[in-house]
């Protein structure tokens, strides 16, 4: 019997190619030994086909014991490495390794199918790690190859040529696109953990911390990663107002700045009065594993689509940490008065650790005594930064000892966090309440889709001082040193060539080309993020409402989904049935005759004529010889003869034809 035959070597080789490609993205972060086990198994199987290497057969009990030992060892090794076999990373490593072991023991068609389906599953696991466009394209190719595997294993005679297999497989995938689209658009999206990924799926996202130690942001500044993308309705705020507010740091132990205890701050009423221009925008925030959302300083309302509130520091605080890309609409007004009359935590904004920054404290007290007002003192400090030989540099010298004193009196080279921290210390030492605000400043406009792209390298820190009757006022000491950083953004500070790969750095034209490729690619990614990856419950509701569905909820969506899918599955057979109806009634009768014989595995092959088929059938059903011959003759006379016979004779003959197995 054909279906019990071992899969052909061609189909095995196709499978090896498909599996290797499917698992290859995992090689990047899996422990090397997992990849090695997998690749060794694949290579062994290929060697078995090419050079007839030995392959264990499970007939022998020693081989079975060996396989068992290897499997147990694999489980133990993974448990040892990850602490369990559950979770995203351990689960995927387990899957890849077992898949490799399975490859060495594919013998029957059944084994082959099991392996192909495991391969499809490996394809899905790649999306636990990244859902980027290149990954989707690569996995699309893998799915074409895996489907080609299913074709080759069903084509033991190699009737279909190599390229045709790929073409056929691609055709099948393209034909399935409508169903894919229906499922994508209509499958009910339910927010919540039901569809969530394993807990460890979100490790490794980077972004601004709620701590600041001098030297930390510099890591971010090297990073090209997108932090968030903003598209404004209408006008953009001028560059100098593009402050994206993040965690506010109050406490310092002399080196590290941290937030004030949240359970205290959230209990306090804040008083923010807004005035002036309003900016409406929507923001797509990349996951950063933390509890805050970024907003243009200062948002006047928390967004409706994400559960969040504006906390006592004016930071948009989300209820859950941002583990997936979120998209929200906001309105911000850069003119605002923050706790104008009363700041309940004013004392915390004056604290400085004892025995730290002694030189700075002295300097501050001296200057404060020389100036009349707080405002004048602030100006004095800023002009000190501006006129003394302070430099803005992304690669400051390493500071040892008291970092603030060291920076102010010795190195004088640093970037935003150095200036923000030391400015805050100078303020507090002079009795002016001050705090450090972290976040992003600037961003780059992508001319392709007019989106403001804010990257990790736009990370920034500035200072707010509290003045009676004015409230918290933003003072950016970095602007005093390097006004370009604030006016034009970090990109102007970093030369273009520094942000491009080496091979284009020598030619301006190439740099421009590189820039425009980057912009277009980012625009494509933005669309992908917004319409495919961020297609969650809200997007689905919006989209379906636009399509004319009134008040879609998951029940009505499910009903639509079910109806559309059943429509497809009813229409397809109907179409096939209709095509059959179109056929000659004689042919239909003959097909009935054939389906009666099909019970005995007698199916006319492509290109097998009725007489040849009858002769073959008679070999199996000797006792029905005369019936089969009569029916075939009647059919031939009707279908190919030149006399007009009556169809009824054939009809009756086929109706009465009830083939049974010989006794």
């Amino acid at each position, binding site marked *: 019997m054909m279906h019990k035959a071992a899969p052909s070597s061609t189909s095995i080789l196709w499978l090896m190619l498909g599996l290797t490609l499917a698992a290859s993205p995992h090689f990047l972060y899996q422990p090397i030994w997992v990849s090695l086990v997998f690749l060794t198994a694949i290579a062994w199987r290929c060697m078995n086909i090419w050079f007839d290497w030995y392959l264990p057969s499970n007939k022998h009990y020693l081989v079975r014991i060996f396989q068992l030992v290897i499997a147990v060892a694999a489980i133990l090794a993974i448990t040892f490495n990850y602490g369990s076999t559950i979770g995203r990373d351990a689960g995927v490593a387990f899957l890849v390794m077992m898949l490799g072991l399975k490859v060495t023991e594919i013998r029957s068609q059944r084994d082959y199918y099991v392996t192909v389906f495991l391969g499809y599953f490996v394809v899905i696991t790649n999306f636990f790690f990244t859902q980027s466009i290149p990954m989707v394209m690569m996995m699309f190719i893998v799915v074409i190859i895996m489907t080609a595997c299913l074709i080759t294993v069903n084509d033991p005679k190699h*009737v279909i040529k190599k390229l*045709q297999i790929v073409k056929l497989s691609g055709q099948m995938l393209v034909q399935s696109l409508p169903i894919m689209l229906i499922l994508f658009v209509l499958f009910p999206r339910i927010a919540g953990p039901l569809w969530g990924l394993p807990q460890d799926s979100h490790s490794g996202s980077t972004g601004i911390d709620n701590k600041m130690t001098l030297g930390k942001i510099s890591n971010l500044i090297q990073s090209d990663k997108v932090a968030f993308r903003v598209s404004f309705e209408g006008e953009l705020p001028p560059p100098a107002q593009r402050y994206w507010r993040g965690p506010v740091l109050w406490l310092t132990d002399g080196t590290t700045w941290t937030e004030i205890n949240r359970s205290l701050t959230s209990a306090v009423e804040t008083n923010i009065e807004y005035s002036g221009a309003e900016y409406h925008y929507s923001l797509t925030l990349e996951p950063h594993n933390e509890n805050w959302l970024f907003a243009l300083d200062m948002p006047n309302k928390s967004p409706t689509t994400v559960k969040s509130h504006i906390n006592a520091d004016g930071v948009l605080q989300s209820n859950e940490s941002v583990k997936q890309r979120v998209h929200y609409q906001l309105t911000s007004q850069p003119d605002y008065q923050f706790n104008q009359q009363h700041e309940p935590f004013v004392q915390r904004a004056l604290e400085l650790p004892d025995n730290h920054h002694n030189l700075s404290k002295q300097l501050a007290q001296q200057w404060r005594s020389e100036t009349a007002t707080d405002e004048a003192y602030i100006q004095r400090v800023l002009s000190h930064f501006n006129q003394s030989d302070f430099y803005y540099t992304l690669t400051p010298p390493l500071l040892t000892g008291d970092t603030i004193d060291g920076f102010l009196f010795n190195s004088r080279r640093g970037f935003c966090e150095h200036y923000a921290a030391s400015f805050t210390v100078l303020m507090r030492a002079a009795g002016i309440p001050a705090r450090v605000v972290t976040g992003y400043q600037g961003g780059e406009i992508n001319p392709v889709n007019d989106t403001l792209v804010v990257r990790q390298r736009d990370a920034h820190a500035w200072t707010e001082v509290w003045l009676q009757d004015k409230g918290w006022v933003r003072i950016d000491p970095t602007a005093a040193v390097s006004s370009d950083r604030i006016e034009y953004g970090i990109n102007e500070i970093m030369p273009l060539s520094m942000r491009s790969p080496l091979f284009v750095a020598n030619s301006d034209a190439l740099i421009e080309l590189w820039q425009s490729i980057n912009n277009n690619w980012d625009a494509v990614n933005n669309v992908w993020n917004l319409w495919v990856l961020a297609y969650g419950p809200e997007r689905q509701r919006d989209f379906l409402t636009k399509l004319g569905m009134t008040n879609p909820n998951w029940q009505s969506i499910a009903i639509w989904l079910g109806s559309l899918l059943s429509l497809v599955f009813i229409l397809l057979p109907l179409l096939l049935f209709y095509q059959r109806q179109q*056929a*000659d009634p004689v*042919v239909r009768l*003959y*097909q009935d005759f054939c389906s009666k014989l099909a019970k005995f595995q007698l199916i*006319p*092959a*492509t*290109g*097998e*004529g*009725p*007489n*040849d088929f009858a002769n073959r059938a008679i070999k199996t059903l000797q006792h029905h010889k005369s019936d089969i011959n009569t029916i075939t003759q009647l059919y*031939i*006379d009707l*279908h*190919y*003869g*030149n006399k007009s016979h009556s169809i009824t004779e054939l009809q009756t003959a086929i109706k009465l034809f009830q083939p049974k197995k010989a006794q």
Partner: protein
Amino acid sequence: MTDRVINDVLDSINSIILGKEHTVKLALTCMLAKGHLLIEDLPGVGKTTLAHTLAATLGLSFQRIQFTSDMLPADILGVSVFDRNASQFTFHPGPIFTQLLLADEVNRATPRTQSALLEAMEEQQVSIEGQTHPLPTPFFVIATQNPSHQIGTFPLPESQLDRFLMRIKIGYPNAAAERSLLLGEDRRQLLQALTAVITPEQLLKLQKHATSIHVSEALVDYVQRLLAYSRESGLYLFGLSPRAGLAIIHAAQAWALIAQRDHVVPEDIQAVLPSVVAHRLQARDEQASINLVSDLISHVTII
């Protein structure tokens, strides 16, 4: 009546050509379908004997031309010679003026001579110096050629291969047939003794009868699918021409006539297909080791 006649013809030929019933049937099919026959095989398997036997059994006048590389068209077609007495040119017909012409080893002749023959085959007449001389009816050419890879051959181009309705191979006889051949009488003497079973007039009648064999719409659909597959599958360098389609149907009609049926069935098509289309098809991928015709048959649905 036709049934008996055809059986008699086949029996008569099979008494000389032993163990080659299918090949003999194909050769007769070709003649009943008014087609020219190309026999391609090694020397000594009975190509010439088959042609002789066919001529003798069907009562046709017979000529044989052994093709050589120094042969000229005039050697086949004939020449006009100046007759001194009549003071004019008179046409001396060449060996082509016969009912059955055996063109032996046709691929040994130069292309010029080959095309003279093939032109006459197509036109059923010979034109020399402005004068047209019709060829006798029925007129058949049975050409033999050695496998093309042999030394000193000019392979027939595709366009000229197309003029032959069928190309068949004879092949070695099976053991039993070969034994009786070796033990039996000399074939030449048997041939001498062979008498015609039918007259050329009867043959013409049979040819006419073959064209009246019913070809149903369903069958034409099948032939069209075959043609379409040969053009669209990408396996073949060129698809089959409409002329090839006609050839398939004519040959299948003649085959059905021999099988004593008044209509053509798909099996008739499949029976003649290898000999009708094999010489008209070329694989796109020359390395491919598939049988082009069986591939064609096994990929095209009948219903």
